[in-house]
């Protein structure tokens, strides 16, 4: 395999997250999240399922606006890749990628096809791709978007080891070009440039959760039970 090279990203800047609090639904899940990822590094988010990896990624992407805290980079510099790959079965591989290229104003999809070994499949409708090929096509969107910050939620799920290696190579090239990545995954990619952050310690504490949700206020407790009958009796009596 030849080494993959990507054009360097302009004005590389670190992703700094300070005192971030995020919610899922109406509940506060994480608080006080702090980390910094310099250009050229990847940060692997690790935690058991349900601890808030996806929540954190969506907050960084501003898909779910954070409750509190600062994120140094704007979402215009980020690309999102989640559990679902966004591939349209009715379109061919080229059409799928071409769409995202035009949306992002990129002129060529050839490097992305090459990086994910999709050249031979270029004219095939996505409906006829194998699960792994389809996933690669989804991931190829990252290269077409040409944005320096990648937010990846379980990108290697359901991938065979060869595809994982391909993907790791692409992420490596992205980092070498001055990009950075935030990756929620159980399986480390085995990159030289990766750091690991355990999300578990940032789980929202009881009193923070209570401060966030007015319906957890302790002031409720004395009135909710005992005095209840009295309130509505006036309604029935007259």
């Amino acid at each position, binding site marked *: 395999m030849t080494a993959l090279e990507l054009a360097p990203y302009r004005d590389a800047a670190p992703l700094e997250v300070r005192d971030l609090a995020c919610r899922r639904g109406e509940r506060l899940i994480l608080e006080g999240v702090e980390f910094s990822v310099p250009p050229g590094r990847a940060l692997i988010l690790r935690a058991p399922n349900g601890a808030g990896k996806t929540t954190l990624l*969506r907050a960084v*992407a501003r*898909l*779910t*606006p954070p409750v509190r805290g600062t994120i140094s980079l704007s*979402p*215009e510099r*980020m*690309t*999102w*890749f*989640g*559990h*679902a*790959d*966004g*591939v*349209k079965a*009715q*379109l061919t591989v080229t*059409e799928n990628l*071409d*769409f*995202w290229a*035009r*949306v*992002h*104003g990129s002129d060529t999809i050839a490097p992305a096809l090459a990086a994910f070994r999709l050249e031979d499949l270029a004219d095939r409708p996505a409906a006829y791709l194998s699960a792994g090929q389809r996933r690669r096509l989804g991931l190829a*969107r990252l290269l077409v*978007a040409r944005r320096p910050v990648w937010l990846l939620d379980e990108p290697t799920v359901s991938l065979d080891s060869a595809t994982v290696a391909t993907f790791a190579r692409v992420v490596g090239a992205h980092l070498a070009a001055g990009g950075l990545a935030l990756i929620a995954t159980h399986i480390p990619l085995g990159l030289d440039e990766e750091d690991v952050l355990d999300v578990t310690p940032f789980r929202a504490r009881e009193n923070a959760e209570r401060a966030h949700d007015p319906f957890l206020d302790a002031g409720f407790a004395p009135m909710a039970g005992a005095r209840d009958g009295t309130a509505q009796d006036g309604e029935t009596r007259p």
Partner: protein
Amino acid sequence: MMALLGRDLALALRSGGGFGLSLAFFLIVVVFVPFGVGPDTEVLARIAPGVLWIAALLSCLLSLDRIFQLDWEDGSLDALVMAPLPLEGVVAMKALAHWLTTGLPLTVIAPLLGVLLDLPGPAAPWVFLSLLVGTPALSLLGAFGAALTVGIRRGGLLLSLLVMPLYIPTLIFGALTASRAGEGLDFLTPFALLGGVTLLAAALIPFAAAAALRINLR
């Protein structure tokens, strides 16, 4: 933007779901009306403009849930929100794509189906024109309903319930234009109002639908 329009048109044409089905449904509803009200041509001629409008409106409802649902399920919507496009523009383009694949074909065949209902000659061009001006509002309001219900499993029925009251002004002015034209009465007032409703929807709905989408994506 044009890329999005092109993609949505290609998807609608290739999946075969929305495009052909709405037209077939339209045909069936129009054919069923004489079965229901009897073959008296005088009666049919009188109700024809209204029937065509109602049938077009119902056919339009069928494919609404596809506007955002598929993109939501496969994750494209998340990517689109992060893409360098204003979400309001995305909504407008998707409504336009829906109209081009549903409202426009319905508009074109409505005067032809009018033959089955003895649609009066002078009404035919106004059925066409009123649908041409009115159906974009149906697609826009439908996109709003689709944005509200995108996170709801089997939201199709709810979507119809939410959208139909919003369709009332368009239906009233549209059907009134066509039927008054058939009776030789003043039809320009309702026609102008019909255009007004469509313009209002075009100005207001992209913002409301984009807001609803952002809320649903949280």
